[in-house]
């Protein structure tokens, strides 16, 4: 492959201090990227530099540092806007993470538009964070959840999507990529079909943004959410993208400083977008760290990242399918680099513990997808999830360690 199109993984690995660490005396093989990604030096340094050299509150003081911090924070918002190709920075709301973003939409847009007997459509492969906020809303309003089922391979049953939509459907909330299966969902198609019935669509992009270029205008979704820590940024920062027209009409989520334009005891006027949804001092360092992560990722090139991860996925699928007794959960045609599996006669937690002793970090459990696990008929799965810095050698280390797991429990 042309080197211009190929990711220089050795150089990339050098950017991530955590990848140099050893676990139980073995080099770390970090394959739990769907849980959280490691951070490049640029992100760590950016957060440190803010606290060491730029720390001040934003949107408040007249002093130099406050103006500088405000500028940096708003420039981070612009970085996120470009990353998602949103039409305007006013459509980018900084939140704590994808979970808070979904709760925000459920508690503002949802409370405003959902009433008794109404319906909210989600899918069978949703993370708890895209189930529970809607259940809370349904409980409060006397509304109902409608669940789009999945196929045996772990794809949405799109044939049944239209039948699920009704005159009572108020919103469709679906994940862009399944954290437990790796399935990439046809969210543009979902938005097209839902919009044909006048129904808005929220897309949970937590598992997508680190692995593919996302263009919210091309997807034509109404809300898009993601967490910074899953895209090489800090924890505690995330993004809600919302179509301006919808955000304008929504009531505030939380009240406090920054989200107001004037307050008297008789009446408060709310601030304009995006500040209406950012009550209190935000996670400024987090926003700057997230922007640094996005700059890092876009400099590498998301096309290159996607190609590298796809090549690893194909390689990993091949190598792991040669492990006797291993069965994949999630074999969709369009997948990101998630290899979820079961090993005959071995519980995923035991596999996880033995792999850990070999320095291989994977996730074992229900992946915050208990309804999906119930659908698959398993209590838990083991999951290796890839990111841009993973290598074929690491896949080989996983496969080798899995042989050891089999021997131990044979």
């Amino acid at each position, binding site marked *: 492959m042309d080197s211009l199109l190929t990711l220089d993984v050795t150089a990339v690995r050098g950017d991530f201090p955590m990848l140099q660490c050893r676990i139980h005396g073995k080099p770390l093989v970090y394959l739990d990227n769907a849980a959280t990604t490691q951070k490049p030096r640029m992100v760590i340094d950016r957060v440190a530099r803010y606290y060491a050299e730029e720390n001040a509150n934003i949107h408040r003081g007249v002093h130099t540092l406050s103006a500088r911090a405000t500028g940096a924070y708003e420039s981070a918002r612009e970085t996120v806007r470009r990353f998602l190709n949103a039409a305007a920075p006013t459509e980018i709301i900084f939140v704590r993470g994808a979970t808070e973003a979904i709760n925000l939409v459920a508690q503002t847009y949802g409370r405003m538009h959902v009433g008794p007997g109404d319906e909210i459509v989600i899918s069978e492969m949703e993370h708890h964070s895209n189930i529970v906020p809607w259940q809370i809303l349904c409980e409060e309003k006397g509304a109902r959840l409608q669940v789009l089922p999945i196929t045996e391979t772990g794809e949405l049953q799109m044939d049944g999507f239209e039948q699920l939509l009704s005159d009572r459907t108020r919103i469709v909330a679906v994940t862009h990529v399944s954290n437990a299966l790796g399935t990439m969902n046809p969210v543009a198609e979902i938005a097209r079909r839902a919009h044909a019935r006048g129904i808005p669509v929220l897309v949970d992009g937590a598992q997508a943004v680190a692995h593919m270029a996302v263009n919210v205008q091309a997807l034509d979704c109404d809300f898009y959410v993601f967490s910074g820590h899953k895209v090489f940024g800090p924890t505690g920062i995330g993004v809600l993208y919302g179509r301006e027209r919808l955000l304008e009409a929504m009531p505030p989520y939380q009240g406090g400083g920054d989200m107001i334009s004037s307050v008297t005891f008789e009446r408060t006027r709310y601030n304009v977008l995006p500040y209406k949804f950012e009550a209190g001092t935000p996670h400024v360092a987090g926003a700057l760290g997230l922007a640094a992560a996005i700059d890092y990722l876009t400099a590498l090139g998301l096309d290159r990242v996607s190609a590298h991860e796809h090549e690893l996925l194909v390689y990993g699928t091949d190598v792991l399918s040669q492990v006797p007794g291993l069965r994949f959960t999630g074999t969709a045609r369009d997948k990101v680099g998630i290899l979820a599996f079961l090993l005959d006669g071995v519980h995923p*937690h*035991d596999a996880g513990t033995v792999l850990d002793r070999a320095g291989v970090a994977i996730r074992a*459990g229900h992946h915050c997808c208990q309804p999906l696990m119930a659908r698959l008929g398993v209590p838990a799965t083991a999951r290796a999830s890839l990111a841009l810095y993973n290598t074929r050698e690491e896949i080989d280390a996983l496969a080798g360690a899995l042989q050891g797991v089999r021997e*131990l429990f044979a």
Partner: protein
Amino acid sequence: MSVDLPPHRAGVRGGDPGLQALYQEVVLDHNRHPRNCRAIEGGRQAEEYNAICGDRVTVYARIEEGVIRDVSFLASGCAIVNASASLMTETVAGLATADARALADRFHRMIAAAPGAPIEDLGTLTALAGVRMFPIRIRCATLSWEALRAALAGSPE
């Protein structure tokens, strides 16, 4: 009385004292061939569930005159859950309920002790002492004992 962890065969665990301590032969054997893995009709039963990992154990007990006459379990969980439940049923069968509760306390203390602390000799249960080196797996070992406690609680039959 305190004991050392028994020696182990080589293999995957060779060179890894942690894995050797966690997955003792006795533990692997009880995982592969769990004893008393069945339901008991008409007796007491209680289920314990670990929400963090989804492991689930139901313990069944038939108690007569304050003595555990029959005890069994059904589980969905890892090797430690299965082996601990299996070893538990073998150990408490025939015990007075008060003695079984006391043993549950001693077992919990042994499992949750600091890695370097002396290991109390609890017979075959001592095979699970290595769990103390894996704090996140402690609940796997204690789940069936919690279920036993719950099954024993309440009015005597």
